């Protein structure tokens, strides 16, 4: 099953759900589903900035497994980090996200 994650809430979803659950499972190849993409809203975008340790780990896994990482453009502009993201991580909105995932569309889009 292919899934995409939208990190939309501020419930420790990045530091906890991604950082302590999803990411370690992906690193250990035992997540249980094929993750094709992750999209980040609001403050969750800070994980995508260049010096973020969790972001660096996430980018390494994403590169290895072909997972799309994308930040919400408005959210990144609002935080003035749009041009400070990890190398190769784009910003965009839903049309960009769906276009990027069109080659490997997810079976489920899960909002966290």
């Amino acid at each position, binding site marked *: 099953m292919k899934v995409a994650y939208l990190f939309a809430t501020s419930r420790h979803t990045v530091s906890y759900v991604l950082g302590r659950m999803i990411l370690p499972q992906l690193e250990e190849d035992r997540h249980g589903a094929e993750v094709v993409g992750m999209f980040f809203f609001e403050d969750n975008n800070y994980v995508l900035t260049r010096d973020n340790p969790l972001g660096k780990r996430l980018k390494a896994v994403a590169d290895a497994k072909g997972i799309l990482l994308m930040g919400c*453009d408005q959210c990144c*502009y609002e935080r003035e980090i749009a*041009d400070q993201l990890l190398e190769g991580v784009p910003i965009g*909105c839903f*049309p960009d996200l769906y*276009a990027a995932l069109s080659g490997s569309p997810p079976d489920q889009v899960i909002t966290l």
Partner: protein
Amino acid sequence: MNGIGHKRQRAPKRRTVIEYFERALQRSGRPQLPLIGPLERGPGGLAVCFSLNLVAGRIRGAEFKATTCTTLLAYCELLAELIMGLTPTEARRLDTGRLIDGLPGVPPTLHNRAGLPIAALTSALAQHSAEESK
């Protein structure tokens, strides 16, 4: 004032991308100005149309309609501010580099979105020239 008594055009205050975007959103619902340029289309379904008001040979009003891409709207808003008070000839000299320099927070992968507002403005000005020569 310069030596021949004309006011120098002040450079617009430097704003962030999101500030330009929010200013662009405030134009929603405003009527178009008399000189309506053609709709210029770009990749990904993006489109821009500029309308202008010229008084005594200078641009005194600019409005635009554009698809709701944050980056595109910010570039359109910056361009609309830059052309105020310019003659059509002066406005034609503005290029994508000017827009890119004016919005340093846009990542390089999205610099290409500056092309569409320039194209739309160029079309509107070309239409004005064509009508003037009739």
